[in-house]
C-alpha cells in the first residue's frame, strides 16, 4: 500500500466512523436543536458526500434526509421530537421496534438467542452496553455504535502500521453486518415507512438501510487496498 492509498483509506475510515457515529446518535437519543444542526452542518454534509457514488446511493439518501434540518425552527423541532417519541417511545403501537430480535424471531420479544449472539460479538472486541444486562444488546443505535468503534480501532491500527489488525477489524465488521444488520434493516426500514408522519426518521431509516447495504462493497474496497 503506497502512502497515497494509505492516506485515502485513512480518510475513508475517518469518514465512515463519522457517518456511523452520526447515525448512532440520531437513532439513539431524543433530538435536540444542537444535534440536528450538527448533523446538517456543511462539514457533516461534506463528510457524507465523500461516500456518494452511483452504485452506492446510501450516502446521497442520507444527505437528502438531513437537508431539511438545515432550517429547523423550534416548532419543527417539536414535531420531530414527537415523531421520535411516536417511533421510539410509544405508546401508540410502535410501527418499527428498533431491536433485532423482534425481526429475526417468530415471537416479537426481546432478549432472545439472537440478542446473545450480538452480545458475543461485542464481547469478542471487549465491548459491553452501558445498560448491561437490563437493556437488550441489539438496539440499532448500539449496533451502529459498535461499528463506529471498530472503525475507530481500525483507523488507529492503520495509523500505527498494524495493517493485519486493521484488516481483521474490517473483516469482522463485514461479517457482523451481513449476519445481523442486513437481516433485519430492510424490514425495519419498510416498517418505518408506515409511520403516521414522515418528517425525518422514516427517511433516515431508508438511508441507513441503504448505507448498510452499500457497506459490503466499501469494506471490500478498503480491504483490497490494504
Amino acid at each position: 500500500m503506497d502512502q497515497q492509498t494509505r492516506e485515502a483509506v485513512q480518510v475513508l475510515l475517518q469518514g465512515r466512523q463519522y457517518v456511523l457515529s452520526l447515525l448512532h446518535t440520531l437513532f439513539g437519543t431524543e433530538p435536540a436543536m444542537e444535534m440536528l444542526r450538527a448533523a446538517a452542518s456543511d462539514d457533516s454534509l461534506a463528510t457524507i458526500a465523500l461516500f456518494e457514488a452511483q452504485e452506492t446511493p446510501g450516502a446521497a439518501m442520507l444527505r437528502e434526509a438531513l437537508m431539511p434540518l438545515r432550517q429547523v425552527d423550534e416548532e419543527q423541532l417539536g414535531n420531530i421530537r414527537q415523531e421520535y417519541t411516536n417511533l421510539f417511545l410509544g405508546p401508540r403501537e410502535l410501527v418499527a421496534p428498533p431491536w433485532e430480535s423482534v425481526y429475526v424471531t417468530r415471537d416479537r420479544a426481546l432478549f432472545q438467542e439472537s440478542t446473545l449472539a450480538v452480545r458475543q460479538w461485542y464481547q469478542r472486541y471487549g465491548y459491553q452496553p452501558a445498560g448491561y444486562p437490563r437493556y437488550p444488546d441489539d438496539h440499532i443505535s448500539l449496533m451502529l455504535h459498535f461499528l463506529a468503534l471498530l472503525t475507530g480501532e481500525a483507523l488507529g491500527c492503520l495509523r500505527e502500521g498494524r495493517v493485519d489488525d486493521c484488516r481483521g477489524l474490517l473483516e469482522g465488521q463485514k461479517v457482523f453486518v451481513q449476519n445481523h444488520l442486513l437481516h433485519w434493516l430492510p424490514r425495519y426500514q419498510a416498517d418505518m415507512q408506515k409511520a403516521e408522519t414522515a418528517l425525518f426518521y422514516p427517511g433516515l431509516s431508508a438511508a441507513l438501510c441503504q448505507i448498510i447495504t452499500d457497506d459490503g462493497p466499501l469494506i471490500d474496497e478498503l480491504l483490497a487496498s490494504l
Partner: protein
Amino acid sequence: MSLIDKLTNSGISRRGFIKGTAATIGAASVALAASGAVAQANMLDKTAEGAAGALVEPGIALEGGKWVNVACPHNCGGKCLVRAYIKDGVILRQKTDDFSSDDDVNRQQRACLRGWSQQYQARGLDRLKYPMKRKNWTPGNPNGHLRGQDEWERISWDEAAQYIADEIKRINETYGDNAILCAAAGTDVMNKMNINYLSSWRTGSWGSWFAPSALGWGDGCYYYDCNNDRLDMLNCEYVVAFGYNPAWSSLGNATNYAKSWKDAGTKFILFDPIYTDTAAMLDAQWVPIRPGTDMAAMLGMAYVMLEEDSQENPLIDWDFLKRCCVGFDGEHMPADAKDDQNFFDYLRGKYDDTPKTPEWASQICGVPAETLRQVARVLGVKNKVGILSSWATARTYNTDQLPQLVIALGAMGGHIGKSGHTVGPTAWNHTNNFGPRLIKAGSGGATGAVSGTGAATSVSETQQWKAVLGEPFNPTKLWTTIAGAGPNWKSKIGDFDLTRKIENVSANVKMIWNGSASRLTNAEGAKLGIQAHRAVEFVVGQGHFLTTTNKYSDIVLPITTAWEREGTGYIWEGYYNRDILLIADKVIEPYFEAKSDEEASKLIGEKLGLSADMWGTVSAKQRLFNAVATTTVVKEDGKTWENLCAITEDDIKAWGVEGQPQEGRISIDKYMEDGMYRVERKVGDNLGFIHKKEFRDDPENNPIPTTSGKIEFYCQAYADMINAHGYSEEAYHGLPKYIPTAQGYETTYVGNDPKGAKGDYPLQCINPHYQRRAHSIFDNIPWLQEACANPVFLSKLDAIERGIVDGDTVKVSSIHGDTLRHAYVTARMMPGVIGLPHGKWNRVDEKTGIDHGGSENYITGNVATGLGVNGYNSLTVQVSKWDGDAIPADVDVPQTILF
C-alpha cells in the same frame, strides 16, 4: 470510479484535498460530539481488551447456562412448577416439572399454557420500560378528558417520584380526607404518611362465598378446610356441582384431580349454562341452567327430597338434621330467630302460598322439573355425594344466601362429615385439594417496617366509580372485617350494631392511585370507571404493561416481575395445593428501568420526607432465608411436624445471611434446586381430611362457629349482616329464600315478567374464566392470543334468530355499554345465555364509545345489592350483527408498546 480512486486522483492538489477532507471530518466529529450525549443505554463501553479474530457467527451453545425455578405467581390457584433455562441473563428455554414421579396419587406439578408463556411476562416487547408521563397532564392542568388517548413522554424516576409526591401533598392539603382513592401498592405510602384515603373492597372471585364464616364454613380461600381432601373424594359416588369448570380456570392439577375421581368411578352432574370442557372431560351429565337461578334449582330439589322422603325410600338424613342442624322445621328453631318461619314450611309454601316445587323452580332456572327430581333423588341419604359450588355461581347479585342454601341442601342428605360425602365451595386456589396444609410456609420474620396510621374509608367496588363521581356511598367495614376472620368472626364483629343501617357518606376524590391493581378490567362498571378516571386531577398507575388501567393514568411506573425480584418468589402458601410448596428466586435482572413496587414507594416516600427504613431494614434475602428455615412439614403420623430444610453453617455462609444451623427433612440446597417439595400421599394414609367429621360425630363438643354452634338453615346473624348494609331495599330473611337477582333472568322480560314479552336486553351474559388468562394477566401474550381467540360464545338458536354465523363480528350491548367480539356459535351454550370471557383489556373507539376489545366489565355496571357482592355474572344483554368493519383477531392487533 472507486472512492479511493476518487480521493487519490482528485485533480488539483491531492494532498491538500485529503488534508482538507480530514479536517472537515474532524470538525464535523467535534461538532457532533459537542451537540449532546447519546442516551446512556445506547452506548457501548470498552470493558476488556478485544480478542478478535474469529469471523464466524457465534453459535449459541446451550452449555454454560442453568435451569432455574421461576414463579408462575398468578392467582389462578393452580400453582405449578415452571423452570427457565437462563444463560447470561437471557431465557433460552422453559420447561415444567419433569423430575417428580407421576402416578395416580402423586402427580407432577405441570404447568399449563399460561405458565409456559410466563417468559413473555418477563421479556415481552410491550413491557413498560421507563416511567412515562401523559403529555398534556401538568399539575393543576390535568386535561383529564385526554386520559386514554393522549401522547406520552418519557421521564426519569426522579421526576416521576417528584410529581407523585407533590400531587399527594397538594391534593391532601387542598381537599383533605378521602380525596385519594388508593389500591394495592398505593396504600403503602398513604399509610406511612398518615393520610386518610378511600379504598375499595370487593368480594371479587369469591362472590358470596367471601365470608360464609357466619354460616360455619370455610370460604375456600383463607379457610381451605371446607371440603374433604382429594383422596377422600375418590370415594364419592356422585359429585353434583354448580358452575364447575377447572378446565378453563385452573388447568393444572385442579383439573387432573377431578379426573382422578372420575377414573375411580365418580359420576358427575354439572349445573352450568355451558357444556364446559370440564363436563366433556368428566363425561358428566350436563344440566343447563340459567345464570343466577341456582338457588331456585336447589330449592326445587330440596322440595323433592322432602316430598319423596319415606321409610322405604329415605332421602333425608333426619338423624343428622336433628343432631346437627337448626331452622329446618318448627321444632328446631335457633334461639335468636326473629320470627318463626322454618325452612321446610318455606319449601311447602306456607308463608307465600308458593310451594317450591320443581315445576316452580323450572320456570325460573330453565331446568326441566323431571331433571330436578332425578338429581334430587341422587342427593338422597343413601348415596355418597359431594356437592360442590364454585364461586362463580355466587358471583351474582342478590345471591348472598347461596352458600347457606348449598350447606342446607347438603345437610338434608347428610353429606357432611363422612368419608365420600362433602359440601362446600370449590376454589381453585387450593388446586381442588382441601384440608389443612401438609407443608407450611415459614415466616420471613420482623422486617422493622413501620406501617403508619393512615386509615382507609371503605367503599364497595360495586359503588366505587359512582363514589368517585360524587354519589353518596356506604362506608361499611363490616364485610371486610369478617372476611377472612373465619371462625373468629364473632369477636371481630363485636362493635357493629347490626340493627342500624349504615349511613351513606360522600367523598371528594381528586386522585386515583391504582397501585398495580387492574381496576378497569377486573372491576364492574369499567365504562363508568373510565369516566371517573377522567374526572379527577391526577392518576398514577404502575405495573408490567400498559394495561387498560395504566392506559388511563397520567404517570405510569414500570415494575419488575417476580422473575426480577429477590426473595419474592416465596409465594404465599394460601393459594397452594396442600401437598406442595414451591419456591423460586430472582432469575434475571430488572428489565430496563423497572423497579419493584417497594422501591417505587420508597422513592416517592423520600420526596415526602419518609425514611427508607420505614420499609424495613431486613434484606429480602434474609427474609427469604428466614421463611425457608421456618418452613415445616408434617410427618407420616399426620400429627407431628419437622423442619423441611436442614441447614448447615456453610449454607448460611453461602447465602450471606444470619441464622442457625438446623436439622430438617431435606437439605436447603435440594429444596432450592428442585423448586418444590411435595408431600407423598397414599390412599388410606394419615394425611387425609374429612371436613366437619368431629362436628358430625359429636356436635355438642365440637360446635361450628355459627351463633348456635349448629348448621343454621335459618341464620339470623347472617341476615342481619346483609340488612345492615342497606344496599338492597327489601330485607333479607333468616332463611335462604329465592330472590330474583338484579340484572337476572326475570329482567330479560318487559316489566320483569317472564310471562310477557322479551325486553330490550333479552339474553343473559356470564363471564367465564378463560384459558388465555389468569384474570386480566396474560391477555397481551401473543402465544396465548393465537391459541385462545376469546370470542363471545353464543348458542346456535340465538345466533340463527339474529342472522349471525360463526366468526361474524357482533356487538354485545347492555344498559352500561357495548363491546365487539367475534361470535363463536355453538350448541354447547344454553339458549338465552351468552359467555363473554373475563379479563379482556379494552380497546375503546373514542368516537362511538364502543369497545372493540371484548372487555366484559366495560358492559357491566356499578350495582350494589345485598352484602355488596360483585355480580359479574348478573348481566342482561342484546347481541346483534355488527354492521361496521369486522374486527381483527386479537393476535393481529398491534401490541401497545412503550419504550
